[in-house]
């Protein structure tokens, strides 16, 4: 606990409030990298995810690519890309690394969201004469918003944790306290930096939770497969199992820093 006291003392010391190394400056850098990467991830992944969810095509490819992307070590990717583009464009390298991290999560959220829409509802929309675009934008996208937000949330949290590495290639961010703290074994600095990152993650998590709550409040919770009661036990069991393996969105969504 003593270490925590030192960390807080360090965090709130006057030196940490001014200059280029001020906590708020580092926090701003960290948030900026995170925001850029999350937005780019969303721009890339949401259309693809919607297309996969709507047509049911390309799911295997997306899952395979997501798996491969998740296997890519962020540190390795960051070092090789920075070496390729030069440290002057390290922001570019770091952004690519964080986007690679974010895309699988957003993608899974997007297609799981569209897939979660009751097929009867889609059929009903089609029967009413909606075009496929209208079905996607007016039916599937709104209903799947909760799951999409889940994917975005997961991507954001991973990127916040991984953005620590930005400091390794001269980009600053909150990771600088940790990287420097490790180099000079300054535990109060490391812990102080880590605490700010954890708080940042919690706040962002809270924002997403709030957003999810707001949009689900207005809407009936989707029915779970088992509650339909139609098929016999064995069949349901297989069905549920299949659902889980192929598309448990939580499993597909989470990754790591």
């Amino acid at each position, binding site marked *: 606990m003593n270490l925590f006291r030192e960390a807080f003392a360090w965090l709130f010391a006057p030196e940490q409030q001014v200059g280029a190394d001020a906590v708020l400056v580092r926090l701003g850098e960290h948030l900026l990298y995170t925001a850029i990467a999350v937005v780019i991830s969303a721009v890339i992944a949401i259309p693809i995810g919607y297309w996969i969810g709507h047509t049911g095509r390309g799911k295997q490819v997306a899952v395979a690519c997501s798996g491969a992307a998740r296997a890519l070590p962020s540190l390795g990717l960051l070092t090789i890309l920075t070496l390729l583009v030069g440290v002057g464009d390290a922001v570019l390298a770091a952004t690519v690394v964080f986007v690679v991290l974010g895309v699988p999560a957003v993608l899974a959220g997007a297609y799981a969201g569209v897939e979660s829409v009751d097929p009867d509802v889609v059929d009903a929309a089609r029967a009413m004469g909606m075009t496929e675009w209208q079905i996607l934008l007016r039916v599937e996208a709104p209903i799947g918003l909760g799951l999409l937000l889940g994917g975005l949330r997961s991507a954001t949290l991973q990127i916040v944790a991984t953005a620590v590495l930005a400091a390794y290639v001269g980009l600053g961010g909150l990771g600088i306290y940790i990287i420097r703290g490790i180099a*000079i*074994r300054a535990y109060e600095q490391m812990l102080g930096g880590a605490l700010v990152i954890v708080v940042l993650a919690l706040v962002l998590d809270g924002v997403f939770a709030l957003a999810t709550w707001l949009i689900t409040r207005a809407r009936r919770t989707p029915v779970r497969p088992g509650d339909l009661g139609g098929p016999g036990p064995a069949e349901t069991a297989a069905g549920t199992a299949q659902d889980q393996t192929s598309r448990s969105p939580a499993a597909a969504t989470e990754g790591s820093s």
Partner: protein
Amino acid sequence: MTTHQRSWRRTVPGALVTGAALALVAACGSGDPLADPDASSTDGGSGTDGGSGDGAAIVVGSQAYYSNEIIAEAYAQVLEDAGYTVERQFQIGQRDAYLQAMEGGEVQVLPEYTGNLLQFYTPDTEARSPEDVAAALPDALPDDLAVLDYAEAEDADSYNVTAEFSESNGITSLADLADYDGTITIGGNAELESRPYGPPGLQEFYGVDVEFTAIGDSGGPLTKDAIRDGTITMGDIYTADPDLATGDFVTLEDPENMILAQNVVPLVSADLSEELAEVLDPVSAALTTEALIQMNAASVNDQQDSATIASDWLTEEGLL
């Protein structure tokens, strides 16, 4: 349901997955990978779990710096040649990290640089020349650590700007920086920011205020790129870096001797210093700056691994 039920009572998935995973490890690792006797430069695992103290094996460590690893590899090879069992714990990190490991007895031998080592323990030291620094070291070190003879070879921090910057601003020395109007940004490993030869020293010795950018490649290609493209004004590159001979950079002189002499020296556990001196002193006697630069070039340009580079050099010097 019944068939599943019966098979499931015997086959718990977790256990089997675990078994399969472990079988895979066993198949790939042909036994305990930590005990792999095949000693390449970064001989995996490096037995950190045992710590030390049982005297069975000597743990040779190195900084997270390729050139330091080559020297450590040379130490390791002569020790093995002298009949010691050696464990390699390379690429530990920077000074604060590995000195902690050495003081804790986890590592018994590590190549150090005299000046930075001295300044780590006595930041306000007045010693500057190789002799003075080496003379001041024994008293500065904690009781359980000792240094052996130092080598002629030096690998010091140095501040480098592009030749173009040097010419157009007439800057060839750190003392010239005080008259420079623009912002000076220096780049180097994160720890440089608080070192006595980093921004605090530049302020104290030369009255220069600098901004700092942490680039974690120990004066490697990123730092050099950053100097070239102007991301930083000057970068900390170690003097035994073969790229300094290319003429792209001008190493700024240090008239106030802010940076101490940095001779390569084996830092060892005090209780082993006498027996280790017999084996390692000949290595230090043979190690020149030129040899170090050549070995670094073999690593960076020829992409050889540290074990090969070290054994080639040791053989050449008749030490193996």
